[in-house]
């Protein structure tokens, strides 16, 4: 193969000339076809934008936690579209402001479980043998404790604040993450292109990062998206039990908890925060479903 043939300039630019759009663009094109997923994306982006704007526009001290007794328990009206709570605080503003808690807890919690569970799952899946057994058996142990109870345990031990909430919700879904990650790696690991890479002399590390991880991204990404939704629900459940974000912060779960004692006559107080949670989580789940079909066309059929 030492014959040196002069390759003309034109063929040198071949890879640029036949530049195909990248896989990411391909995934986006599939994703766009899914109406539900696009709806989810738009709704979620609106929520994120409002929670960022709310940070600057709404003043925490005066408009969110200041008690205006004469304005107490007003039904939804033009002045207060979502009505006011038992301290006269405007519920709409609190919901808009409160969106940051749910989103931040949801995302950070999932990052926690992705970091711990995902990495453990990938290692278990790729290493196999005793390491896999140790990791998976310990996951079985954690998984046997119902997620909510585990979160409750951690919160009672360390006290209820936003950081602990994030950690406990994150830790509670580590086993599920580990299992998905391991399954994804296992399906990839037995393919012949992994053997081909080994035959080409690739080190284990190189195989992990150039072949295994890119091919596991799809199921792990989908799992991450879906987990953000369930993390938000778990977080709001804990706040509802008084174990999440401490009042007076307008976290949707604790707002529902406060509204509960007025459920008989002022049911609107429990309506809007609940709707906010459902819409946010539904949007995220729609995106998750859309992502799964877009990333892995085989699944669609």
């Amino acid at each position, binding site marked *: 193969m030492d014959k040196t043939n002069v390759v003309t300039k034109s063929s040198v630019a071949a890879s640029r000339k036949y530049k195909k759009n990248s896989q990411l663009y391909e995934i986006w094109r599939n994703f766009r076809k899914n109406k539900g997923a696009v709806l989810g994306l738009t709704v979620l982006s609106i929520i994120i934008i409002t929670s960022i704007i709310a940070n600057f526009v709404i003043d925490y001290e005066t408009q969110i936690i200041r008690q205006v007794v004469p304005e107490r328990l007003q039904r939804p009206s033009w002045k207060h579209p979502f009505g006011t709570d038992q301290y006269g605080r405007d519920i709409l503003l609190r919901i808009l402001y409160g969106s940051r808690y749910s989103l931040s807890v949801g995302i950070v919690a999932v990052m926690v479980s992705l970091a711990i569970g995902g990495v453990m799952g990938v290692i278990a899946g790729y290493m196999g043998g005793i390491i896999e057994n140790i990791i998976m058996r310990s996951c079985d142990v954690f998984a046997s404790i119902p997620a909510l109870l585990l979160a409750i345990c951690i919160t009672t031990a360390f006290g209820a604040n936003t950081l602990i909430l994030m950690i406990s919700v994150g830790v509670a879904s580590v086993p599920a993450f580990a299992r998905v990650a391991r399954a994804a790696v296992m399906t990839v690991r037995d393919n012949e292109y992994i053997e081909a890479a080994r035959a080409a002399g690739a080190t284990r590390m*190189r195989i992990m990062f150039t072949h295994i991880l890119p091919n596991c991204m799809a199921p792990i990404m989908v799992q991450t998206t879906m987990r953000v939704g369930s993390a938000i629900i778990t977080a709001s459940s804990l706040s509802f039990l008084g174990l999440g974000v401490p009042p007076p912060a307008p976290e949707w779960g604790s707002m529902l908890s406060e509204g509960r004692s007025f459920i008989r006559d002022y049911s609107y107080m429990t309506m809007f925060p609940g709707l906010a949670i459902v819409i946010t989580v539904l949007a995220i789940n729609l995106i998750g479903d859309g992502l799964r079909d877009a990333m892995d066309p085989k699944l669609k059929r």
Partner: protein
Amino acid sequence: MAKNLIEVKDLKKYFKTSHGMLQAVDGVNFTIEEGKTLGVVGESGCGKSTTGRAILRLIEPTSGEVYFDGHDVLKFSESELRKARKEMQIIFQDPYSSLDPRKTVMQIISEPIKIHRLIKNKIDLENRVLELMETVGLAERLINTYPHELDGGRRQRIGVARALAVNPKFIVCDEPVSALDVSIQAQILNLLKELQGKFNLTYMFITHDLSVVHHFSDYIAVMYLGKIVEKASAEELFKRPLHPYTQALLSAVPIPDLSERKERIILKGEVVSPINMPDECRFAKRCSYARDECRSHTPELREVYPGHFVACDFPLKG
């Protein structure tokens, strides 16, 4: 006598299973001359693929010696083995699972070159890939396509180009054409033949298809339940099969030629997986010529005619 590039001595590969020790490859011996092709043929479960992978140490053999160019590959350290991989490559059967679906043709073919750091400059690397694509008959415009956009034949060509990328001396072809249609099969077989001539490649060609192995190989080893039962040149083996299994195998192949219609030898029973095999001829249970001596010990491979080895105490007259 040309130099033996590959020499395999008493290669064994056992797998521990819940039912006992699966003796997938049980003492296999053969040599392959440089620039020649050894065909390894046998039915599923006979250990031919395991042998191919064990030689390349894609799976660690239980025991034995594998001399490549005079060095025992099984004694190599990790780094020596990785360096030796440049000389020994493999082509797989399933065009759909042997290519990374997330990589383009360019990335797949160039990976071995990058691993061994043969070409640093990006433009030279691209030229090398284009050159390889041209050698295996892939159109230049496919450089950035993904495997799922191509048919089986072209995907197999990518696999061949990847194996050629590091200028190997020896390639294990593990059923390279079994998953392809007849017309595409012929194209790939011709390509492999042409490349052997051009780059003086040595092949170990593994297949279950007797007519393909007969056409493609210079020497053929017939395997049954982890052992080589017969080994000879391609003409010799098909003209004068000495082992009852080889004879039955040859007669079982349906021939697309009406004048060749001949009496069929139909073997009774089915292949069983070689777990805790007793010390007897493994084919005895299904062999119509079997005698008591056959069940007393495991026959060794011995040279009955020049270059024609058989592992049977009562070989057929041929």
